[in-house]
């Protein structure tokens, strides 16, 4: 993919994720079920994934995203995780945490760290977020 | 019985360490000049430059040297072999014939003693390298200080003596080293053949000891030994070796010998506080052990009494090994309580250096602190009244130590000396286990020398003391002991901590000899 195409896709993803946040904020005390589709949409757009991705597992979504962008298999990613070596954090957790924090910031909420950490699926996270809205 | 074993028992006397002699092969290397000439290493005038003159001079020096060799060394220690003379001329040839002639007695030779006329240094160095045995020389000008460093630099063990006394001292310790390399210990095993329950301060590895000193170990199972102590002409009936006809049970005849020995032992004692049958019983195991030692061709003995004690067999058989140790040591057979092999080895060295039977026991310092003589066991091991009496007798004496075990000797002044007075009391309070009781107070003022190997077999403790009291003469059990004074008991104790409990001793001051012996054995010698 060319550099210009990448920039185009990133811009489009920013627009989609902003729209998903806006949709959530338009609801008054949304339920988990109401948050879920927008959260999933937000994450897919942040991770540059399309609807063909089936998994609801948060880390797997990130793995798919990284492996797709690096053009390597997800299995290889476990071995060659290429995050910022100097701070010792693997890229999956880094990318997921950043996405979550940015999402919460956009919604104007601050989720308890342990609640965030314990989320395994998008649905888990939707449930947590809905309680803060 | 297997006729070979029987034959061995009949014909093989024990090769006692004290009977071992150092075979010294003297070699005189003479040089003569074939031609008449003068130069930087040849001088003289007239006939002095003739071959005939050289040969006559060589013969004179040789005769004088040979005469000296025959008389200068202690015949108890040294066996001087027929001297060998080698002639060489100024072509300085080293021929095979010369080397073969010099080495013709190598099988029996322990040490080569060289004397020279003129300069045969290279020949001696080459011979020493080839033969692999120690060489030595009396100090001369200037061969000894040329040859000895040359040999040492080539890894050859060699010595040079300043005088006859020095030579005799060296030969005496080399003799003991030889005897140690020929020591064969009959080791009675119940469980662990390295160390017993009571003497874990023994050598860590007997294999190391064999590799280092040459002394060997022959093992016998304690239960089989116990079975052999039963008079039985048909050994197939032995419980632990059923059907074997070559058991070493003592015969009726040997039992009669044991009884005779017991009777003599009782008759010669000042007092006997034991029943005859219990004394006879002790000689029963002594006689059995002699028989087994003969069959195994051993000349030293040890048994792990506490390990065996725990089986209750000693209680059933009604004997202990104490008297065996006493009698063995009196006969020049090093014999150690409690499977304490470093004590056995130290006893062997002391016995051979001093030619006195040794005594071994628990050794402790007994300083007087706060008006009380400390660390002396009262009650369990030593009779409380006896200790109180000893306390009074010792007064405020400082730097006092105590060695106690019921294995004193009746010949503390030397093998073959007149027997000292003794009494007989049992080890067990119930009356079994004959022990010699010796009143060490008779020998107050006597100098003693002590020694012990450390558990790694790399160090030798050598210490000196003076007898200042005794305890336990009138008691039973392990309570027999000697008090002695050392120069500094705290120093003695700190050094003892690297060696172990039992510290054998002999009468006399043998520090110089023991230190030299430690050195030729390659040990680090610690003195106290």
């Amino acid at each position, binding site marked *: 993919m060319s550099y210009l195409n990448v920039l185009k896709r990133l811009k489009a993803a920013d627009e989609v994720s902003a729209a998903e946040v806006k949709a959530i904020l338009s609801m008054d005390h949304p339920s988990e079920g109401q948050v879920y589709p927008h959260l999933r949409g937000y994450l897919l757009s942040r991770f540059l994934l399309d609807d063909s991705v089936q998994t609801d597992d948060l*880390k797997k979504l990130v793995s798919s995203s990284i492996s797709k962008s690096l053009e390597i298999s997800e299995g290889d990613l476990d*071995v060659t*995780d290429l*995050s*910022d*070596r*100097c*701070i*010792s*954090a*693997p890229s999956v*957790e*880094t990318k*997921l*945490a*950043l996405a*979550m*924090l*940015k999402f919460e*910031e956009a919604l104007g909420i*601050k989720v308890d*760290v*342990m609640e*965030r*950490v*314990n989320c395994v699926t998008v649905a888990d996270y939707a449930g947590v977020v809905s309680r803060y809205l | 019985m297997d006729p070979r074993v029987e034959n061995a028992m009949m014909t093989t006397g024990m090769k006692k360490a004290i009977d071992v002699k150092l075979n010294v092969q003297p070699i005189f290397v003479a040089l003569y000049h074939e031609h008449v000439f003068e130069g930087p290493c040849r001088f003289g005038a007239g006939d002095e430059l003739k071959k005939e003159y050289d040969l006559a001079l060589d013969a004179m020096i040789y005769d004088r040297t040979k005469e000296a060799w025959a008389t200068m060394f202690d015949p108890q220690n040294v066996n001087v072999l027929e001297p060998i003379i080698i002639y060489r001329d100024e072509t300085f040839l080293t021929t095979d014939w010369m080397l073969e002639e010099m080495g013709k007695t190598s099988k029996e030779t322990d040490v080569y003693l060289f004397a020279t006329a003129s300069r045969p240094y290279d020949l001696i160095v080459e011979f020493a390298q080839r033969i692999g045995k120690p060489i030595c020389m009396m100090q001369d000008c200037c061969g000894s200080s040329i040859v000895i460093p040359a040999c040492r630099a080539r890894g050859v063990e060699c010595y040079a003596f300043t005088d006859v006394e020095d030579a005799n001292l060296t030969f005496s310790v080399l003799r003991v080293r030889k005897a140690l390399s020929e020591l064969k210990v009959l080791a009675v*095993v*119940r*469980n*662990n*053949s*390295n160390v017993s329950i009571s003497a874990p301060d023994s050598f*860590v*590895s*007997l*294999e*190391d000891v064999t590799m280092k000193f040459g002394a060997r*170990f022959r*093992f*016998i*199972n*304690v*239960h*089989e030994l116990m079975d052999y102590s039963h008079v039985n002409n048909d050994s197939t009936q032995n*419980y*632990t*070796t*059923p*059907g*074997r006809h070559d058991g070493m049970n003592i015969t009726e005849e040997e039992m009669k010998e044991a009884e005779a020995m017991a009777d003599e032992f009782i008759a010669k004692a000042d007092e006997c506080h034991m029943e005859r049958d219990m004394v006879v019983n002790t000689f029963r195991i002594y006689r059995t052990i002699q028989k087994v030692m003969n069959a195994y061709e051993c000349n030293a003995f040890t048994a792990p009494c506490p390990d065996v004690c725990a*089986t*209750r*067999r000693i*209680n*059933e058989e009604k004997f202990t090994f104490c008297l065996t140790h006493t009698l063995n040591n009196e006969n020049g057979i090093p014999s150690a309580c409690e499977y304490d092999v470093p004590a056995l080895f130290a006893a062997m060295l002391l016995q051979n250096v001093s030619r006195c039977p040794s005594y071994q026991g628990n050794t402790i310092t007994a300083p007087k602190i706060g008006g009380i003589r400390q660390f002396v066991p009262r009650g369990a091991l030593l009779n409380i009244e006896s200790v109180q009496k000893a306390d009074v007798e010792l007064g405020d004496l400082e730097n006092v130590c105590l060695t106690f075990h019921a294995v004193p000797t009746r010949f503390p002044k030397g093998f073959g000396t007149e027997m000292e007075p003794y009494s007989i009391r049992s080890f067990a309070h119930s009356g079994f286990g004959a022990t010699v009781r010796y009143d060490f107070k008779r020998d107050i003022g006597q100098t003693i020398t002590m020694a012990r190997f450390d558990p790694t077999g790399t160090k030798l403790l050598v210490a000196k003391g003076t007898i200042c009291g005794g305890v336990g003469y009138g008691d039973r059990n392990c309570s027999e002991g000697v008090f002695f004074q050392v120069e500094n008991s705290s120093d003695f104790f700190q050094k003892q901590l690297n060696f172990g409990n039992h510290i054998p001793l002999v009468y006399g001051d043998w520090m110089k000899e023991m230190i030299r012996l430690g050195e030729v054995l390659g040990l680090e010698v610690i003195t106290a």
Partner: protein
Amino acid sequence: MSIKPIKDIKLNVRPVSVVLYHDYVFEGPCRFGEGPQLTYDFDKTVNLMMCKAFEESLTDASVFDPKKINFLPHILIERNEEFIVKDEDMEKVGEDIENVDAFYIHVGMSRTYDFMIEMAERFNKPVILGPTMAIDTITTAAIAATGRKVYPVRTVQDVARHFDVLRVKKMMNNLAVLCAARLNSNRSFPSAPDGFLSTEDVTKRMGIRFRYTDPHEILDSTVPRPVQTAYDEETTNHTTPGRIGLNPNDEDMAVIEKITDEFIAGAAEVEMDRELIMRSVKAWYVVNKFMDHLDCNAFTIPCPDVCATRRLNKEKITFCLTHSLNQEIGIPSACEYDIPALVTQAILMGFSGKAPYMGNCEFGNIPQGDDPGAFWSAMFVHEASKNEDIPFLQKQQAEKGGDYVIVTHAVPNRKFKGFDAENAPYAIRSFARSGFGATIRYDFKQDIGQVVTLMRIDPLCRKFFIAKGEVIGGIGYKDTNCSEGVVVKIRDHADFFRKQSYFGNHVPLVYGDYVEELKALAEEFDMEVVEA
């Protein structure tokens, strides 16, 4: 009985996560990012996500076998950019330290090296750093420099391998060998002078303990004594008169009879009298009572030394079955007082989870043709061995080529495929031609193609001899005596023999390939590897 077989030993591992959260939002030479990435919340989220993943990985049985590894509760150490090593945190890590065999450290985000180094130094336990993206070598070099054990890893499989080595090392530390010495307790001169020169050296290097007993006292204790009275010679043993012995009582005898019957019932063929089989089972049972009494979990006895007393002949016992049955339950048990072989068995058991086999290891190539040579002819007396086994092996050899060794002793067992596996088929025949001394007969032909690892330790306890091979057949299944054996194809017999010459006769083996594990263990004990 409360014998603790080494096979049941687990490595107690304390997982520790050391993480850092920056209290303040700032950038600098060791802190970078933008937006939320510089927040405390980000640090904590990422770190705790990693800790959670680490904790979950511990339960992956395909990597960490719960039968081998016991993970203690995971400890989380949190700090900030002040880099303070707090006593309180050290106390958490060091709690109940005597039950910790190793630390498994998850290195969190950012710089926590100093804490791990101090932890290793303080507690002196092996440290394995988890396979993170940390710059491991900073920590490993620093820890190694303190003289502490540290293991660099790249994958969780590496971690598991190190745990395995540490576990086998722990097994050695927990091995207490019951040595029934008749004479020399280091080695048996009549049969295995290639044993260790000094068992003390083995204790020093590998931590293995040795407890000694007397074979006469064991043999005396094989006599059933329903009632023993203290101080009574009549009701007690000859060698320990008046002492209550470990002899089987009525209850024990009922158990012995039951075991005997089950042993007979399970066999494909039995060519011995029940009474004589029971004597062997009884010997095994009594040996186990001794091990139980002396807190031992391994056994050896110098059969040739004891043989010479004629007591085995009288009692109609050999210890072959004792060794087989012991090995099946994870108790190393060596013929002929061969302690290097015993220690080797223990090591092979540890890595494989399978019962080992030991025997005389010799040149195994059989001459082709009708005459198999004097050695092969003399070794086997049964017609089946001569007429079936030898031609079969000749055929195998002709087809497969290569070099062979034969390992022979009558101590095979039924658990070569694993302690938890079903009993393999077996027969029962005697050791003695006259009919006593039960032995398991195992037809090694059923395992043709199995890879085996062979090993032995040298007499100075300084080297491992390791080889790998493939089973091509067996011999002596239908025979009596010590003639049972397995024939193994090896790489190069001349090389094998030359190297084995410095190690000794009995070469234990186990099914499977454990060469790399053995090499790692040798390194752990600072021992040299000689591979054939």
